[in-house]
């Protein structure tokens, strides 16, 4: 939530609520939040989907041989993700191109839209990133067993290590494998949350400092630039890790 309670602000200058922006609340009225209630989550996820639609579908409407600007960007995004998959997994991974493209676009546009003032940062919610990471983890694991059968376990059996070390490494690999979805989700959510909270804290300072607000406002501009970078990088990191996990499922041998 980005609209701070103004009454509290008025009474005390340093009454900063950097975390209020992450609150989920209903779009209409003030009732309870059921699973089906349209909330700010609904709104901003919908906007992210709309933005992706505008870029990829409306942008490529002309189907021109010589592309327009929006079509060029759509084609660059297409080529970027496709090349990423092809470089890491090889041709076999291209079957999962739509899935990975979906994840990339969703996270990218959610990150970018979250940078608008008064917006809601969908990808700073652990529930969202957790489900995304869990979906990747479960699908990749199931895919690994479906494609390779029981030999998928070889992923954890480091055959290049000395025999004595292999059980130990097996345990370590196993733990690291199961920690993947945790780091995968916290990395994205944490980065987004931290950045937005920092901007909010500086904004609170700016409200309290009067003419000295120049300093926190400059800091906000700098952090905002950084956050723009983070929005792209975290979308990229989430996607490339997904592709790397997919590669493990397709080619488990070390």
């Amino acid at each position, binding site marked *: 939530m980005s609209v701070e309670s103004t009454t509290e602000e008025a009474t005390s200058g340093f009454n900063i609520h950097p975390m209020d922006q992450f609150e989920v609340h209903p779009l209409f009225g003030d009732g309870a939040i*059921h699973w089906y209630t349209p909330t700010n989550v609904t709104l901003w996820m919908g906007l992210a989907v709309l933005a992706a*639609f505008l870029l*990829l579908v409306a942008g490529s409407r002309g189907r021109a*041989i010589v*592309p327009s600007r929006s079509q060029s960007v759509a084609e660059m995004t297409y080529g970027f993700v496709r090349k990423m998959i092809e470089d890491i997994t090889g041709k076999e991974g291209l079957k999962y191109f739509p899935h990975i493209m979906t994840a990339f676009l969703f996270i990218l546009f959610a990150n970018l839209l979250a940078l608008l003032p008064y917006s809601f940062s969908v990808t700073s919610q652990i529930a*969202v990133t957790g*489900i995304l990471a869990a979906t990747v983890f479960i699908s990749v694991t199931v895919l690994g067993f479906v494609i390779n059968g029981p030999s998928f376990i070889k992923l954890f059996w480091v055959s290049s290590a000395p025999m004595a070390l292999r059980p130990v490494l097996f345990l370590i690999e196993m733990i690291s494998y199961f920690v993947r979805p945790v780091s995968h989700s916290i990395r994205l*959510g944490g980065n987004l949350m931290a950045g937005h909270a920092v901007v909010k804290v500086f904004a609170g300072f700016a409200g309290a400092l009067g003419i000295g607000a120049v300093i926190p406002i400059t800091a906000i501009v700098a952090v905002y630039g950084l956050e723009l970078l983070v929005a792209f990088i975290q979308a990229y990191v989430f996607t490339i890790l997904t592709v790397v996990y997919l590669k493990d499922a397709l080619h488990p041998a070390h």
Partner: protein
Amino acid sequence: MANQDAAQAAEASAPGMPQLDFSTFPNQIFWLVVSIVVLYFIVSKVALPRIGSVIQDRQNAVANDIEQAAEFKRKAEEAEAAYNAALAEARSQAMAIAGVAKAEIKADVDAEIAKADAEIAAKAAESAVRIDEIRASSLKSIKEVAGVAANDIIAKIMPSTADDKATKAAVAARLKG
């Protein structure tokens, strides 16, 4: 409502992290699934096939253009070769025609020269005959003149012995000798 109470309790007790307010999780997860499914269908059914086909079309167009350019280049080379061949043929033909013309002219000239030579020879022969005639007639005249002169001389000196015929014979014999 238990849900509402939980939410309010969470907001009241833990202002730290709204992300850990589990009462909103079902809502977030539901809408996440809806958004992702919608986006997945947009991406897989419309966006990727369309962009993929556009890129494919472009590659085909470029490949076609390059192929066509190569075709044109090949045709241009063929045309150049044909032009060169035609040029060489024309040149050789021109040389042949020139040769024939030269031979014809030479034959004409030779014929004319031969004709002229023949005429010249005929004229020369005629002239020679005329010269001989003139010589012969002038020789006869000389004989007569010499005979008459000798007779006259003898008649003046010794009129008694003047014998026309004998004098003439003597002069003729002398001239012959």
